[in-house]
């Protein structure tokens, strides 16, 4: 009779196991998200800080992590990049303690506390070739038309005849959101080839003739054509000076959001990132980052 009792036990176990799949929980409790959140929010030791979000901010967080971990024995900072919007989602769900973002949190995310740790500029960057050697600057409206797909050839920007290949970042990207808001007045990008991280995008730009995209200035390099923006009679280069003086418009704060006021290890790490020591000595040495304190212009929304 052992066999039968085993089978009954097995059937009961099976029924219990399958039940969550067929009960009447509302859809807002979607299983995958809930499961991953629970897994990620497992208890952590006192010194561990989990961070996710913006890939534009990642170089700075990594630099801070290295210095902080050598100075504070036992502290551990875990960083993963997956896009600004993921950072905001993760910090509000409690999966991480700090959510990195290039963009302000949505107005309905009132429980999130903003810590502005730096300013980053963004620029249109393109494949370099003889066809665009003569393109010295592009007007804001022209740039918008390139990315909405109205201008399709480099000859319309003053270069040689070569089709423009627009490459986009994925919709979760903060870079896409900031560039879209400032240059296009919203996410009006033409539907085109999409790369989901900045590093891969740089490689793709170098490889593809006629291609153009948008990147944080931390990814600026000589092999890519970084386009100055023409405002009035002047071509404005995206530099630290032009951004701090408010001449170059495509920039955003780099935010580190916490859910509620930061405490414990999270507060200690944030205090370190915002300390005068880090802000004035370490931060300016990382390519593309500007301390918030030197900005002569301010913003309260993207």
């Amino acid at each position, binding site marked *: *009779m*052992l*066999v*039968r009792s*085993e*089978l009954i036990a*097995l059937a009961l*176990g*099976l029924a219990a*196991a*399958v039940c*969550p*799949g*067929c009960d009447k929980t509302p*859809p*807002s*409790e*979607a*299983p*995958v*998200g*809930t499961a991953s959140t629970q897994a990620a929010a497992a208890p952590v030791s006192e010194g561990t800080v989990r961070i996710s979000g913006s890939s534009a901010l990642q170089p700075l967080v990594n630099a801070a992590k290295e210095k902080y971990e050598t100075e504070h024995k036992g502290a551990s900072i875990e960083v993963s990049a*997956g*896009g600004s*919007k*993921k950072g905001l*989602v993760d910090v509000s769900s409690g999966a991480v303690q700090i959510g990195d973002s290039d963009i302000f949190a949505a107005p309905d995310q009132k429980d999130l506390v903003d810590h502005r740790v730096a300013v980053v500029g963004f620029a249109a960057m393109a494949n370099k070739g003889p066809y665009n050697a003569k393109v010295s600057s592009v007007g804001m409206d022209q740039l918008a038309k390139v990315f909405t797909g109205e201008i*399709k*050839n480099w000859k319309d920007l003053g270069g040689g*005849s*070569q*089709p423009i*290949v627009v490459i986009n970042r*994925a*919709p*979760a990207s903060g870079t896409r959101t900031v560039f879209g808001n400032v240059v296009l007045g919203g*996410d009006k990008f033409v*539907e*085109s*080839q*999409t*790369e*989901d991280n900045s590093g891969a995008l740089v490689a793709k730009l170098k*490889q*593809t003739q006629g291609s153009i995209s948008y990147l944080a200035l931390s990814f600026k390099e000589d092999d890519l054509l970084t386009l100055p923006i023409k405002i009035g009679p002047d071509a404005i280069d995206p530099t630290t000076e032009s951004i701090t003086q408010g001449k170059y418009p495509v920039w955003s704060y780099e935010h580190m959001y916490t859910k509620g006021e930061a405490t414990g290890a999270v507060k200690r790490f944030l205090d370190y990132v915002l300390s005068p020591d880090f802000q004035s000595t370490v931060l300016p040495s990382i390519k593309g980052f500007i301390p918030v304190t030197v900005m002569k212009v301010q913003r309260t929304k993207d």
Partner: protein
Amino acid sequence: MQQVIAQTPEDSLQRRVRLAPRSRWPDALVRVFVKACGGFVLATTLLLIGFLARTGLVGMKEVGIWPLLFGSRWKPEDQLYGGLPLVLGTFVSALGAAVIGATPAVLAAVWLTEFAPAPVRSSYRRLMEIAAAVPSVVYGWLALVHLVPLIGTLAHAIYGADSDVGGEGLASSAVLLGVMIAPTVLLLSVDALARVPHNLREASAALGASPWQTAFQVVMPHAWRGLLVAVFFGFARAAGETMAVQMVIGGARVIPANLFRPTTTISSQIVMDMQNARPGTPGNNALFSMALILLVVSVAVVLVMRTLSRPQVRG
């Protein structure tokens, strides 16, 4: 697991109890453990389908099955959930892979079983087994570096240097998937052809048929079910492939004007969108619906395969 359940009527149960009366403890323990394993695997599969269906069906209700399959624009940020670009991308690249990869694979299998000398046969097989085991990300990366620029050059040769075409698109993904599925299709085809009884070949030769006539008019017709199963298996694998395709398809959520324009597939769009999908939002539900559609298509292909292969197993 199925067999365990099938054997539980009272008579067989008692017979087993008679054969092993008052079984020793370790024996019983092992039995419980093995059964628990069987139950665990079954439960995992059922849970997977249950979870997928729970969220996926909500999405289908919110968006509607028609737009999910035939709507022309997928842009979750703007609440647009037209799945046609994804469905079309998946279907066309898998079909292209079947043509580009499976056709030569089946013919190569015929050559291998009917014409190749024995040493060549075994080393060729070894090689294909290795090729079938290469992780897809490796195929994808190689394709990104070598195949995409090549296809881009080809595209410009066809459409003109000034046209808006490139290496990313259905052409690249079909070729890549074709290369990826070819070893598996070949191995399955070789097995199918090897199952053809040898006396058929001898009879054919005795009637004066040439080896070529034997291969194409006797062996292949006899093994057609097995060969079709091999091709279907390749198609199913190509339709579900994610990582490699995502690297070469381009990721534009539109129906492409031609094979050399970026587009997307169901699986690569899921990878792209899931990081941005907040649980409970329509975007998340619609994404689950697309996953459910992919699962249903795969199950359908498996069912077709089973129907095809059943009579052959009997004979």
